[in-house]
Structures are given as structure tokens and as C-alpha cells.
């Protein structure tokens, strides 16, 4: 029994880290631009396809591919901000509806380009780590490791650079931040671009584990939603807490009850939290 608990704990942390990559970008876009981005999962999908193209078509090394994916995603974020979201800056609801349209465009665009069939991604590493009865596949450990490194870099950027401070200021108060010289014209595209880049790199990291198809964005989007609602829209520490919590809940419920029970439990939890604390576990109440 204690072995099952330890294994569930490890699996839960791995899941939680991946959910965090998805959720931070999502919550950043909301915190900075007040956009609930239903297209966030499609950028995960695009990141996975970028990785596939880089590794199998162009024969680039995996780390280079991931770096290029990040650059591409930031640029894409800037373009999308300009073309789709900019007119709806002061209208949360319209911005969100627009993101539904964007999601359709991206998903079906990928469908036309790559076809509906799932494509295999070559394994980056093989084998497993073993500690007694505990087993962690090396492919998962690699995704986890790179994920943590990226999250750390992002954390340092957010806490210790000028642009990072500007982003945090925007999350706290747009007007005051603007008065203090935060340039919205640069920070909005940057905030969205970084958020999208985190989703894309999550896609690139997951591609070797789960394969690639135009429809893979739905589940990560759902997880990001759940994490962000639990943690509070716009709250990054909240997202961190909720992501790990969600990973653990899922892993424990599916080990001890069943996988479908895990989904129902998390959704019930989400609805409960929204009703009791609409602003989330660590979120601020709406002004």
C-alpha cells in the first residue's frame, strides 16, 4: 500500500508540473490582458507540431527544436494579440468569444495541413529509473526535468527583470502600471506571447509521450482551466498550488478509485470552489 502511495505521489508531481506549464501561460494572459483564452490548448497542439517538424522533418536536436518552438510561439502570440485580441481590450466577454473563434481557426487549420491521424513522435530517451518498487520512465523524467528548468527560468524572468516586473505590475493594476511608464503596446503582446510560448513548449515536451494530432489541445486546455479556476484567475502562485494539487488528486483518485472518477471529482471540486470562493484559492476578489 505504501508503495502505491509513493508511486501515486511521484505520478502526481509529474502531472502537476505539466499542468502548471499550461496553466501559468493561461493565467498570465488573463492577469495581464483580462483574456480568457479558449485557444490556449491549440497553442499546445501547435507546439507539439513544431517539435515534430523540427525533430523528424528538419532533423534538429530536441533542445534546439524546443528553443525554436518558444521563439516561434512568442512571435505568434504577438501576431494574434494584434489581429484578434487588441480590439477587445476592455471587453472581457467579447475577447473570450473571439478566442473561441481563434481556437476553431487554429485547430482546423492544423487539420488541413497535417490531417486528422495521430502521428508518432520518436522517443527521445528510453528505459526507466528504478528505486525499489518505484518506477519512473526516463521519458517522463526528461519532460519533468526540462519543464522544471523552464519554469525556473520563467520565474527568474518574472521576478528579476525589468519586463518581468512590468508584467507583474500590470497584473496588479493596469492604470497605475501605465502611469508608472509600463508600455502597454509592448507588454500586451509580450505577456500573451510568453503565455502562448509556455503552452507550446508544454506541447513540445509532451509530444514524445502522447503523440501529435490536431485534436490534442482539448485536454490540456481543460486542465489549465481547472487549475486556473482553483488557483484564481490571474494568480500565478495560486496556479502553482492548484496545479500540484490537481496532479495529486488525479493520480491518487485514478490509482485508488478509477480514472473517470478522477475527472468527476475534479469537476465537482472546481464547481465547489467557484461557488464558495469565486476568486479561487489564492486569487484576489474582483474589484
Amino acid at each position: 500500500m505504501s508503495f502505491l502511495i509513493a508511486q501515486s505521489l511521484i505520478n502526481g508531481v509529474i502531472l502537476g508540473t505539466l499542468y502548471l506549464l499550461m496553466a501559468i501561460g493561461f493565467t498570465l494572459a488573463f492577469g495581464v490582458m483580462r483574456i480568457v483564452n479558449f485557444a490556449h490548448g491549440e497553442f499546445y497542439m501547435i507546439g507539439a507540431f513544431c517539435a515534430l517538424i523540427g525533430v523528424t522533418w528538419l532533423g534538429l536536436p530536441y533542445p534546439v527544436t524546443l528553443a525554436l518552438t518558444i521563439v516561434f510561439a512568442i512571435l505568434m502570440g504577438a501576431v494574434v494579440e494584434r489581429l484578434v485580441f487588441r480590439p477587445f481590450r476592455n471587453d472581457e466577454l467579447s475577447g473570450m468569444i473571439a478566442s473561441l473563434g481563434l481556437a476553431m481557426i487554429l485547430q482546423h487549420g492544423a487539420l488541413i495541413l497535417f490531417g486528422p491521424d495521430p502521428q508518432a513522435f520518436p522517443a527521445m530517451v528510453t528505459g526507466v529509473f528504478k528505486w525499489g518498487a518505484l518506477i519512473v520512465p526516463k521519458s517522463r523524467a526528461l519532460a519533468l526535468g526540462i519543464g522544471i528548468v523552464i519554469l525556473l527560468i520563467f520565474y527568474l524572468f518574472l521576478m528579476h527583470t525589468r519586463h518581468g516586473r512590468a508584467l507583474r505590475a500590470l497584473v496588479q493594476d493596469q492604470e497605475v502600471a501605465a502611469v508608472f511608464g509600463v508600455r502597454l503596446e509592448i507588454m500586451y503582446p509580450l505577456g500573451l506571447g510568453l503565455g502562448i510560448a509556455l503552452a507550446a513548449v508544454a506541447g513540445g515536451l509532451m509530444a514524445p509521450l502522447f503523440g501529435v494530432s490536431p485534436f490534442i489541445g482539448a485536454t490540456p486546455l481543460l486542465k489549465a482551466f481547472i487549475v486556473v479556476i482553483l488557483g484564481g484567475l490571474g494568480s500565478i502562485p495560486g496556479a502553482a498550488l492548484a496545479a500540484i494539487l490537481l496532479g495529486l488528486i488525479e493520480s491518487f483518485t485514478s490509482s485508488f478509485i478509477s480514472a473517470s472518477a478522477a475527472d468527476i471529482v475534479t469537476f465537482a471540486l472546481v464547481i465547489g470552489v467557484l461557488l464558495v470562493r469565486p476568486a479561487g484559492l489564492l486569487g484576489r476578489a474582483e474589484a
Partner: protein
Amino acid sequence: MSSAVTRTASGPGAMALLWAVALVAVALIPWITGSTFHFHIAIMVCISAMATGGLAVTAWVGQLSLAHAAFAGIGAYTSVLLVTRLDLPVLLGLPAGALVAGGVAFVIGAPLLRLRGVYFVLITFALNELFRLIMLEIPEYSGGSSGIAGIPKLSIFGATLSSYEAVYPFALVCLALVMGLLVLIRKGQLGRRFGAVEENLALAEASGIPTARTQNLAFTIGSAIAGFAGAFLAHYVGFISPETFGFQLSVSYVIMLVTGGRLALWGPLVGALFLTPLPEFLRGAVEYQHIIYGVILIAVLRFLPQGLAGLPAQLSRKEGRA
């Protein structure tokens, strides 16, 4: 926003007459061409317009529901189970579907509607997923992922509507009833209350309007209409599964509503009329269909915030200025 809309709807009598004539002409198209395919499209327009009409009622109090497909699903399953297990006539199954969907909305509406704006959208999104997951968990009622096939066709007083030509007039009558209900609500005292709540919640509350109850009433009516449309869809198509009433269906209702006009009385009808047949005109480019939907949605939000139904008003105002 809503004042511009009422101006078009109740505006000069000649204009209203023109619209009525155009609407009747459009409704007659299947009989003129005599094509069963056109009958099918026309029936689907009626069903979509009814469901979107329900979504509009909730939108009139300023809330956007992404759980609309789930309520259509509740109505569909209620009617199908009553008809197949208890041998009730379909004609009773349809209102029963509406009743149960409305009842569920009434019960969960009170706590849900404390959330506003994007938070309400998020919780209804989660609810729609929860509905799908729970239905998949109870396959003895829902048919599980393989769904329920061979659902009894629509019938009136024992006469089965087996052909498209027979279903269409019934669909038109149902649509007329739903639109009639919408007109009654909109033009009556309730409509003004809805408008007040949508425009300024705090002011409405201060003026003595019970805002929470008003919003819940709108949500209940809207979801009941969704239940009715869902039940109609189930008996018309003959197959339902939990996946039928997923996120995608909710999104397509939102797209129709926004394209038609979020706050316009005739918005749902215009949206359904424009978007349901659209794929047929895109025959040569089927794979681009959803991309075009996405582009239309974003373009309408950007350039026609009042939707297609607000287009005449928007145009005449521009002319007036020039």
C-alpha cells in the same frame, strides 16, 4: 444598445412588413424547390434557432452560458427515456424535456448566477463537461459512448411524422411558438426588467428589481427552451449520445447568437438562418467550414458588435451621419 434594436424591430410598419414577407419567403423555399435536402436544412435551422433563442433569453440578463448544450441534452434524454421506457407520446415528451431542463436550471441557477461575466462562462463550461462525464458514467440510461439509436420519430396524436416534408411544418409551428414567447417576454414588463438587469445590475437592484430572481428566471426559461429544442433534435435525428451535447454544440449556439446579435430579439433566428445553411454553400471547401465560422465570429465581434440583426440599424445610422 437595446434601444437601437427595439427601434428596428418596432420601427416603421412598412419595414416590419418587409421583413415579415422576406421571412415567409425564406420559410417557403423548401416547398418551392421540393428538395428533401432543403427540407432537412430548413428543419435544422428551426431547431438551431429555437435552441439559440433559449440562449438569447439568458444573454438578455447579461449572462453567457456555455452549458446550453447540456440543457438541450437533459431535455433530449428526458424525452427519449419517457417515450421509450414509459411509452409516453412524443408530443408529451417534448414539453417534459423542457420542464426537466428548466427545473434543473432553476435549482442550480440560484448559486451559479452569483458569478458574473467570464466567471459564469467558466462555471457553465465546467458544468457542460460534468454533464457529459456523468452521462458517460450511467450507460444504463444514457447508452454510454455508443449512445441511444432508433429513437421513435416525432408524432402528433398517433400520426408519425415520417418524412421531412411532414416534420417541417411542425418544426415551423414550434419555432413560431418559441419566437412568440420571446416576443412576449421582450415586449412585456419582464423584458424591461431583463434589460435593466443587463444594462446596470446595481442600478436595477437599487430600483427595486429583484435582480437575482430575475436572472434565475431568465436562465430557467432559456434552459427550458434548450431542453425543448434538444428533445426535438433527438426525435428528429433518431440518435443521441453524451458526446452529442458536448462543448462543441454549446460553442456553436454561442456563435449563432453572437453572429445574429447578442441582444437583438431576432438575433437567434438571423444567426441560425445564416450559419446553419452556410456549410452547404461551402460544399467545395468543406474543410474550410470551421475556419470560416471562426473568421466570421471574430469579424462580427469586431465590426458588427450588435450582430447581423443590428446591421440595418448600423447602416442607417451611418447614412444619417453622412
